[in-house]
């Protein structure tokens, strides 16, 4: 019984430390994100570079990119094709976030709760601008050296799930051709 209690308290304190670490990371990075959104100074390309740095630092881009096309496409594609796809997808992700963030002026992101499931942190936050507020969930993994975002869910809409259905459709339409998907992504 005693041993059980000790093990339980070790596990509990370990997960509490991890949750506080991820909360700290989130507070820091969300504030930086707000700074970028609300910064109207600088040229368009300078602002774009800031988004690029933010995405590369905080998003698990490769995990998202590969997760969107799935294992069978990865296995049948050449290394060169995958590299091109990863580069194109990274630009696409940055552009999407840049466009979405540019059209809104957010005044605050408040952390509400942190939950852990299957080693994935689910951070619940609320984004509030002048007019409305929305629930914003972040799915985050611990890579050992840092935390990385693998999905963002606005209210009930997941970025990963939405893009996966779009990409799947393009791949199905083009008999699994990664080249065709790359061309479609480049159009945006």
């Amino acid at each position: 019984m005693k041993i059980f209690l000790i093990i339980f308290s070790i596990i509990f304190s370990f997960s509490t430390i991890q949750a506080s670490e991820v909360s700290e990371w989130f507070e820091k990075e969300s504030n930086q994100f707000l700074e970028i959104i609300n910064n109207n100074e600088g040229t368009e390309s300078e602002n774009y570079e800031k988004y690029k740095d933010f995405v590369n630092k905080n998003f698990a881009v490769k995990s998202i990119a590969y997760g969107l096309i799935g294992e069978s496409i990865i296995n049948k594609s050449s290394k060169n094709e995958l590299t091109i796809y990863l580069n194109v997808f990274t630009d696409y992700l940055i552009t999407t976030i840049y466009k979405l963030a540019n059209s809104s002026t957010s005044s605050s992101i408040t952390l509400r709760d942190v939950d852990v499931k299957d080693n994935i942190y689910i951070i619940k936050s609320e984004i509030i601008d002048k007019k409305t507020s929305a629930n914003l969930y972040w799915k985050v993994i611990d890579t050992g050296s840092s935390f990385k975002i693998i999905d963002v869910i606005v209210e009930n809409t997941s970025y990963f799930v939405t893009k996966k259905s779009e990409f799947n459709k393009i791949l199905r339409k083009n008999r699994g051709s990664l080249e065709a998907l790359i061309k479609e992504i480049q159009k945006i």
Partner: protein
Amino acid sequence: MKKHLKVILLLIFVTFLHTINTYANEDASVSGIYYDEIYDPIEPINRAVLNFNFFIDDIAIRPIVKTYKFIAPEPVEKGVSNFFSNLKEPIRTISFIFQGEFSKSFNSLGRFTINSFTSLGTFDVASRLGMEKNETDLGITLAKGGVSSGPYIVIPIIGPSNLRDFSGDVIEYFVDPISNNVPNREYIAIGSGLNERVEIDEQLDKVREASSDRYEMIKSIYYQNINAQLEEEYIQNLPVPKIYIE
């Protein structure tokens, strides 16, 4: 006779849906999350209807919505939104009864009573008293009762739906105690529809500019929102990328 007709129509719809449930080419789980392969046998027609809807939206609805949003002060916009949402509380009350969610049903009834008497529904006084709004409709009720979604359909002017949810909407039209007891119910239906369009205006603008395939994007978002109302741990259960080394 009119009342009998409503009951017969309702029975026909439910029977039809159960038939569809038997033959639908999809997973048998009712509340399971389907994302990769949403049952969409009439996709070419749906795509044409969606294009038509965007065309109508561009030339007629969007300009009205943009003008309204520009002219109406924020409290007015909020008040109108609250008014139409309040009109749906009675049907939510009925839906929750059929779902066996009696406390939520009572909550909806209480919200309707408080908000109607204090402000004709234009202010959400009930929320301030701790009676939060719970979304539901007869489509969700049918889903919880075991009816499968059936094929995805895009309805002219109205937008994305599926056979189950569309049938739920049709049944609502007949059994809704509010719209059945007011004169000129068509105006309320049009007003409510326009209000819903106002509420999704910003999201729709984002769909226009950030999508490689807006049809797939809208379909996915529609199903995610439905599943969020059906799944207890929806956010936790959403699929995530398999982790690769960065």
